[in-house]
């Protein structure tokens, strides 16, 4: 058992290593191989089953046929032998018994019977118990040197007086034939009662049958050329007839006759000279003889050779067809997957805009479509990241620049100097503190996400500085809802709008300029409107403000409208950003649209790291 397990293990290992290298196997090959193995296994299983069934059935048919042939041959032989016995009976009871041989000649009667059966008989003769020839037909000249009493047929007849005895085939050598004819015969002998000179005595009646009679019956039964043959043996196994008798006698061929003599009537299996054989035996009544029909194994194979070849041909063609069909089917099934895989490989190799294959079965098509969408989304994300990074860089640069914009700073510092020189110290301190607060919030320790409260404060700082600088030539009003103050926003988004409102809106309005900053919540959205009553912008131009790349305004802090719009969108999503409403001569409203996101450490970190608002 352990040994079997080891062998099995080694076999599986071998197959895995040399036939089924799973690490390099494609889907097509796997499908193809699996289907092929299954199909071939089923074909073989079916083939073997049917073949075994056929062979078994064929064998049974052949054996049945052999039995029938044997039965028929036995019938014919028994008929023949019965006929011989009848002749013997006829001679004895009609011609010899109750007749005194010294007074009546029995030769004429014997001759009549002989002539009537001349084809079957060689001679008929009667002998005394001492071996003296009494009568004989057709030839009455006995060979003088022969000792009849030593002849087996003679001694057996006298030994077993009740029976008729059939001898083995031998050459008839009782009577002299000047024509030098020697014939094979089977002697039928029996003890008889003869009467001579009114004295009954025991004698022997001999009927020499022509061996060719038996030979003909058996030769007919052996006319096939399938290797099957029939032979006849006596009770001791001695061959009476065999199609290859002389070869056996010469030692060239062999037969298992000795063992066959021990078989009961019926079908037997034997092995002789290394070959398996089926043997059917049947006894011949009265004689003790046995007919044996031998069907060698090669004979069975001969009969089914054609079937075997046809089966091999069919199976070979079938398996080849299955392999090709499986290859084709697996190709058809696997091709879309392969194409999809190729698309992935293309993507893997660095092509960020691969043509993703969408096709094949529903599942593959779905995969392709999903993958295509994923690729697109990744691309967009990457683009967005790039833009974001760029915007961040720009805005940081801008913020930095705005933070150190010399013009704003110069002007503000000049104002402070002017104030100090003018001994307006309180105003100077105020300016410095407002400027300090402005820069503090601008930096916000490097953070991009701050609270709206801080953003509004930044805006107030800016406006406070600008109001002083512009000598209060405009008014600004902040109306921010309390509930939105603690919400998240991107820094430096209100100030640019206020700057825009100053330079494009109310500058030059001689004190009548009004800027109104209103912050409010609408459901999950926050709006911060920067409204001015300035000269306004045509609506078309207003929309362009959000699409063209506005370069840094030389008067302002340096952060453009488009920058604000993009930064909001990048941070919170496409649906957020700036909206502009403006009518010439009526003023403009720059609306900041943000999501309502409470400002806390968690949200700040989330949006700082680029988390997208959902």
């Amino acid at each position, binding site marked *: 058992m352990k040994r079997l397990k080891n062998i099995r293990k080694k076999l599986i290992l071998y197959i895995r290593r040399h036939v089924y290298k799973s690490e390099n196997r494609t889907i097509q090959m796997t499908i193809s191989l699996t289907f092929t193995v299954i199909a071939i296994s089923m074909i073989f299983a079916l083939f073997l089953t049917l073949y075994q069934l056929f062979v078994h059935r064929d064998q049974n048919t052949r054996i049945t046929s052999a039995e029938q042939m044997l039965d028929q041959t036995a019938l014919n032989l028994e008929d023949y032998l019965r006929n011989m016995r009848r002749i013997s009976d006829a001679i004895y009871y009609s011609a010899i018994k109750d007749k005194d041989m010294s007074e009546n000649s029995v030769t004429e009667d014997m001759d009549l019977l002989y002539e009537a059966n001349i084809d079957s008989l060689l001679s008929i003769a009667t002998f005394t118990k001492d071996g003296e020839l009494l009568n004989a037909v057709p030839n009455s000249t006995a060979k003088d040197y022969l000792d009849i009493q030593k002849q087996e047929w003679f001694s057996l007849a006298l030994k077993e007086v009740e029976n008729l005895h059939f001898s083995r085939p031998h050459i008839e050598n009782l009577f002299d034939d000047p024509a030098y004819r020697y*014939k094979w015969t089977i002697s039928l002998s029996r003890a008889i009662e003869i009467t001579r000179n009114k004295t009954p005595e025991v004698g022997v009646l001999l009927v020499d049958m022509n061996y060719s009679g038996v030979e003909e019956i058996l030769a007919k039964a052996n006319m096939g050329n399938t290797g099957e043959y029939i032979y006849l043996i006596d009770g001791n196994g001695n061959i009476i007839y065999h199609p290859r008798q*002389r070869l056996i006698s010469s030692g060239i061929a062999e037969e298992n006759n000795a063992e066959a003599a021990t078989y009961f009537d019926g079908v037997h299996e034997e092995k002789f000279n290394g070959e398996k054989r089926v043997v059917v035996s049947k006894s011949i009544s009265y004689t003790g003889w046995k007919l044996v029909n031998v069907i060698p194994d090669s004979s069975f194979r001969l009969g089914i050779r054609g079937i075997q070849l*046809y089966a091999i041909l069919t199976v070979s063609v079938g398996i080849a067809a299955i392999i090709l069909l499986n290859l084709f089917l697996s190709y058809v099934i696997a091709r879309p997957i392969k194409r999809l895989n190729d698309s992935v490989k293309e993507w893997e190799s660095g092509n960020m805009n691969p043509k993703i294959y969408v096709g094949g079965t529903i599942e593959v098509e779905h995969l392709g479509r999903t993958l295509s969408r994923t690729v697109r989304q990744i691309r967009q994300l990457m683009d967005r990241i790039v833009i974001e990074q760029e915007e961040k860089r720009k805005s940081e640069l801008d913020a930095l620049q705005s933070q150190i914009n010399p013009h704003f700073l110069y002007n503000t510092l000049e104002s402070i100097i002017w104030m100090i020189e003018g001994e307006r110290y309180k105003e100077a301190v105020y300016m410095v503190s407002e400027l300090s607060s402005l820069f503090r919030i601008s930096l916000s320790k490097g953070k991009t996400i701050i609270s709206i409260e801080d953003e509004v404060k930044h805006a107030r700082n800016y406006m406070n500085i600008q109001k002083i600088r512009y000598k209060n030539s405009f008014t600004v009003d902040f109306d921010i809802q309390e509930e939105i103050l603690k919400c998240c926003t991107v820094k430096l988004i209100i100030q640019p709008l206020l700057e825009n409102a100053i330079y494009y809106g109310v500058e030059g309005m001689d004190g009548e300029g009004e800027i109104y900053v209103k912050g409010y919540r609408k459901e999950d959205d926050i709006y911060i409107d920067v409204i001015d009553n300035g000269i306004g912008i045509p609506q078309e131009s207003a929309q362009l403000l959000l699409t063209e790349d506005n370069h840094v305004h030389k008067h302002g802090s340096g952060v453009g409208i488009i920058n604000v719009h993009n930064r909001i969108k990048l941070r919170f999503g496409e649906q957020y950003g700036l909206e502009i409403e403006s009518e010439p001569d009526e003023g403009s409203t720059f609306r900041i649209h943000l999501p309502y996101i409470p400002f806390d450490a968690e949200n700040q970190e989330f949006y700082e790291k680029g988390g997208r608002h959902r």
Partner: protein
Amino acid sequence: MKADKIFIILLIFILAVIGGTAAWQLMNISASGETYNVTVVVSDSSSARWANFKEGLSQGAQDYGIMLNMVTTTDFTGMKQERSLISKEIENGADALIIQLFSSYNQSEYLDNLNVDTPLVLIESDSNPEDVFSSITPDNEAIGKELGSLIVKKADSYEERKLKVGVLAGNQEELAMYQRLSSFRDTIKNKNVDIAWQISGYTDDDIEMQMNNYQKQNHADCVVALGNDQLESGIDYYVSYGSQFKDVLYGVGASEKTVYYLENGMINSLIVPDEYTCGYFAVKTVYEKLTHAQETAKNKQIGYRVVDRASVFSEADEMMIFPRTQ
């Protein structure tokens, strides 16, 4: 991947070979198997001495699927006659030949040329030199020696003079006859035997007359015949003088006539070659040559039996002597 493709191509190729082989064999099964025509050329083909040989040929033909053609001949008078017959048979489509050579000598070149296209097997007598061509023969030297021994044994009863023996030597151009005679002579050399006369020749027509003459000149006590035809000639000689002669003949015989006179006492002992086996193996050897199968033996010696009156109807002797086909 490439390995997979190679594997599949290889597999399909193997299947194609298997299928193709099966198809080819199937076609060959349907078509009738090739049957070879084998011609048998022996001297005096209708002689009763060939009865057992013919039975052996017939059995061999049946076993090996051979079409046999035994050419009807009378006694050969010379090699020219035999060669002419052989040529005719080859023209008629003989695939192989089984030949009893009239003359064993100076045939090498002729047989060589013959053997190239038409495989041949020699029976009864090999050619000279021996063992060049396939032959199925009895041990002729042993036969000659056996005859010699029988004569020497008979000569033991001759105290006052040597036993005189007449020899019917047959066709001494046949190596078989030559060998039998040589070994017979060697066996009786320096024994109480004298060869009174010897008749050699290839026709039996005038042997009786020659015997008559020789017997008058130098009467032989018994006659040794080296072949069946010679033995039958001896029988005819003695029968012409009556049937009272006993134990006057010794010889090689296979016909029923020789058995008859063995039975009646005229022939003391008969040496009977196993002609049946000779015929069977001749066909078998020819078949092996035709099918290029491995030959079981190039030259095969067949057995013989020494038969006398007492043993002629024993089971073993009967089977060898008497043909079944009657």
